């Protein structure tokens, strides 16, 4: 597959190279990252529809290294004068910076000669046609569902957000590296709010996203009409129905939660759990700062993070770099992104590394450093998932996985989570009780709490293929596109290190 050029590549390269030559007599090393995204965007808010057929963002990150000290500067606009001014300001930062405990150095960029990376991305979008198809389909689906439930006086209010963008970046350094990447990325989120009997309100959130063009969501027919794809219609219809069903969902008391023998996590719930509870703890900057709950400051594991049957990975499933909302081909330092095995058989074997943290720990960089539009580059997750280490407890179906469960719960979906050093929290959109091997009542939204080091030591079964279609925006001072997941279902024996708190 031929990778595309970024727009105005020669001009951008000229500015970056000239700026870098300005640093040569001043510092030992410098690099520049240029990022630009042009997107079309549609937002249906509760009270208004916003169409943004043109949204352009670009920024530059400059890094200077001298005598073991570094300075990082975000620059607003790409022109030589601005960057030269930033270099002068950066020199002041370097002079003022104290000497770090361990001098800063950067691991070399592997494969420095390769220039272009990417996937096919459109330079222009048929925004009008895409917007019309989305508005027509989503509101049409909502009215259809209301008619289906006409006897219940249900109101379905979908609030949605769609964007499709072309991303471009260029990385250049004083050692002559020049690399570019072009990627498409598309996202759809539908928040469904249902008002039912007695004004009772329920809400869910459904998301789709990938490094694909808008054609995953809206396609052109043979008659030149744009329509929502059947898969997306089915997906949204399921979430509309679930939001209506939540009107009759039951709650569980803490005593009932204690009685649960198993919790069975859908990949949309397990994914955010793995991301929050474990993923962040593998990010090498957090490890270096002593903030990881599972790896000590020297990069040594504190103990098992899961049972022997669990591997933790970061990267697209089966090394398929054309899939995954968090996928990139090179990171923002120009390092080719590798699929990272973070834990094997429940034990830590790797970290997510930037060039700086790789040098700090004496390791090779693995393409884990990312920046949000000109911010400093730091280790970030991309597509993080739980992978069964063996086939021994991997069942073919959910039915098989739950047949011996007396009193358990299936947990589905999330609206996000968060992590502290030793604990995590993730929201669960809905649940289903499992009683004597059968799925019974729908359960209200809940919160899943876990003590990081111990929660996954009690995994005792899986079902279905590994999927990373849970789509998110990870915040760590900067926002990054991510995906997460695992087998369709992951079964955890209830234990003292996990907690479930059900609303209501």
């Amino acid at each position, binding site marked *: 597959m031929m990778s595309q050029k970024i727009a105005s590549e020669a001009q951008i390269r000229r500015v970056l190279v000239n700026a870098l030559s300005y640093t040569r007599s001043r510092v030992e090393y410098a690099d520049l990252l240029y990022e630009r995204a042009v997107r079309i965007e549609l937002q249906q808010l509760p009270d208004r529809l916003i169409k943004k057929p043109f949204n352009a963002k670009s920024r530059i990150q400059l890094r200077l290294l001298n005598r073991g000290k570094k300075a990082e500067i975000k620059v607003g606009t790409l022109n030589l004068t601005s960057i030269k001014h930033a270099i002068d300001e950066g020199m002041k*930062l370097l002079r003022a910076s104290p000497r770090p405990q361990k001098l800063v150095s950067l691991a070399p960029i592997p494969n420095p000669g390769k220039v272009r990376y990417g996937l096919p991305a459109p330079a222009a979008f048929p925004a009008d046609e895409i917007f019309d198809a989305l508005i027509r389909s989503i509101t049409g689906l909502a009215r259809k569902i209301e008619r289906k439930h006409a006897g219940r006086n249900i109101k379905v209010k979908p609030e949605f957000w769609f964007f499709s963008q072309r991303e471009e970046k260029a990385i250049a350094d004083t050692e002559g590296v020049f690399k570019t990447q072009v990627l498409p990325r598309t996202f759809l989120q539908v928040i469904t709010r249902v008002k039912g009997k007695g004004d009772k309100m329920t809400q869910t959130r459904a998301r789709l996203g990938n490094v694909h063009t808008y054609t995953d969501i809206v396609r052109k027919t043979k008659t030149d009409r744009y329509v929502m794809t059947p898969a997306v219609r089915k997906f949204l219809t399921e979430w509309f129905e679930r939001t209506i069903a939540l009107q009759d969902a039951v709650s569980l008391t803490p005593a009932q939660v204690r009685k649960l023998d198993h919790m069975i996590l859908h990949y949309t719930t397990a994914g955010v759990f793995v991301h929050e509870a474990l993923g962040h703890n593998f990010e090498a900057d957090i490890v270096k700062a002593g903030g990881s709950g599972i790896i000590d400051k020297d990069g040594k594991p504190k103990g098992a993070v899961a049972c022997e049957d669990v591997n933790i990975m970061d990267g697209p499933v089966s090394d398929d770099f054309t899939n995954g909302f968090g996928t990139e081909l090179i990171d923002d330092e120009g390092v080719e992104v590798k699929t990272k095995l973070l834990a094997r058989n429940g034990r830590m074997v790797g970290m997510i590394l930037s060039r700086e943290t790789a040098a700090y720990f004496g390791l090779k960089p693995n393409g884990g450093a990312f920046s949000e539009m000109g911010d400093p580059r730091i280790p970030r997750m991309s597509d993080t998932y739980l992978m069964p280490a063996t086939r021994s407890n991997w069942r073919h179906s959910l039915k098989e996985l739950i047949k011996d469960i007396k009193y358990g719960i299936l947990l589905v979906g999330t609206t996000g989570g968060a992590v502290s050093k030793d604990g995590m929290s993730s929201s669960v959109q809905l649940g289903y009780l499992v009683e004597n091997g059968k799925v019974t009542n729908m359960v209200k939204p809940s*919160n899943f*709490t876990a003590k990081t080091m111990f929660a996954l030591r009690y995994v005792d079964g899986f079902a279905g293929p590994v999927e990373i279609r849970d789509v998110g925006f990870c915040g760590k001072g900067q926002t990054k596109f991510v995906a997460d997941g695992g087998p369709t279902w992951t079964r955890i024996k209830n234990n003292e290190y996990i907690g479930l708190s059900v609303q209501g």
Partner: protein
Amino acid sequence: MQLEKFAKQTINLAAKLKLDDIELFLTYSRTLSAKIENRDINLELKEGIFNAGIRVIKKGKLGYVPITEPDLNVLRTGIKAALAKAGPAPFVNFAVLSDRKKRLELYDDRITRMLGSPSKIKNLARNIIERAFTVKGIENFEGGIGLNIEDRLVTTMHNRTPAFATRTAFSAFVDVNSRDFDFVAGRRMPDLEKVAKLGENLARSLPKRSTTPESEGMKGKKLPVIIHPLMLETILRNLVAEHIYASTVQEGMSRYRVGQQVAPITVTLWDDATAPYAESTFPTDDEGTNTRRTTVIENGMLKTLLYDRASAAKDGVESTGNGRHRPVLIEDEHEAPVRCTANDLFLAPGKTPLNRMIKGIKRGILLKYLLGFHTANRTTGDFTNTLYVGRIIRDGRLVALPEPGRWAVKGNALDCLKNITAVSRETINVASGVLPWVQVDLTVT
């Protein structure tokens, strides 16, 4: 960069493109920060950061153009694309700015001077570190200091003078062992001696032991909880305010009506973007309506909703100055749509001293922060989250930290407000408001 010059050029472009009206929300900023990681300090700079959130009206249609490059050619492309796909405008014209007599306090020259001197910010960071490490038991220490200067301009096509101000901001925070944090923030330079002691004071205040809900006999119980002002502001802004926005009420999705008793008579809440050195302080909101102080809840009764111009036009009233670019997820402020948004929030202090509130609790929690509160349900106001930072109260004393990942708290934000049993005499400035501690009952799970 001169925002006023760019604004003039843009308005000239709007005239050439025969637009009926244009609204500009422009910012240009510089930020110097020191990141503290144990004993290391990293200096970072954000230089020349320009953002423009532009709305245009032509023939009754409204288009949006967000850009980050001060380039009229890019803007021209954006305007043309926006107008080609524009939807109906909720009003005929953008606001015409009216004069404001009172000068707002939002700039401190001491911050500007410090911004030009990286060594001063480094020395302050070093001071914080050295003092913090005088306390034993620090395993990991994180923090940061940030200084910012921002030019901000709001104008529309038919104004003679834009709303323009240069604002400064200072912030500092510390985190000890990932178990508690403290901070100062505002638009005025704080007492730097107090800033230097942030980490030390926090480290000294940390109880030595942690505990679980099971060992405290609290699991599954509804217990008195004292909510810290920072958490209270988050609850009010993320969940309660949603039900006070006129747009939510107009959609029939609010649980509130004007005139309804939504809190005890001890509760008075106001929204303000004119308070000295507060986060939202600026002469206008983001669509040119003069900012003001709006009493939202008085003695527990909902007095008014918060309006932007679109929702005000629907109800045939004036905007309350709450039209703001409110970003979510990956959005920056300038690219987010303008919608009803709370400015800084102020809750009137009560009469009970905080230590008396604590002393009156046999078993309960002082709740400073819940993990992942952004996942709470803004439609219903329900939340259930892991307790991240707090103290366990036993027999009127703060006795322990919550064991990480073992405590969760659930409740409903609107019920919390309605059932406040005490409001503290003390308040703190959380940057986007000044609030007291309040006591409610919540379930520990």
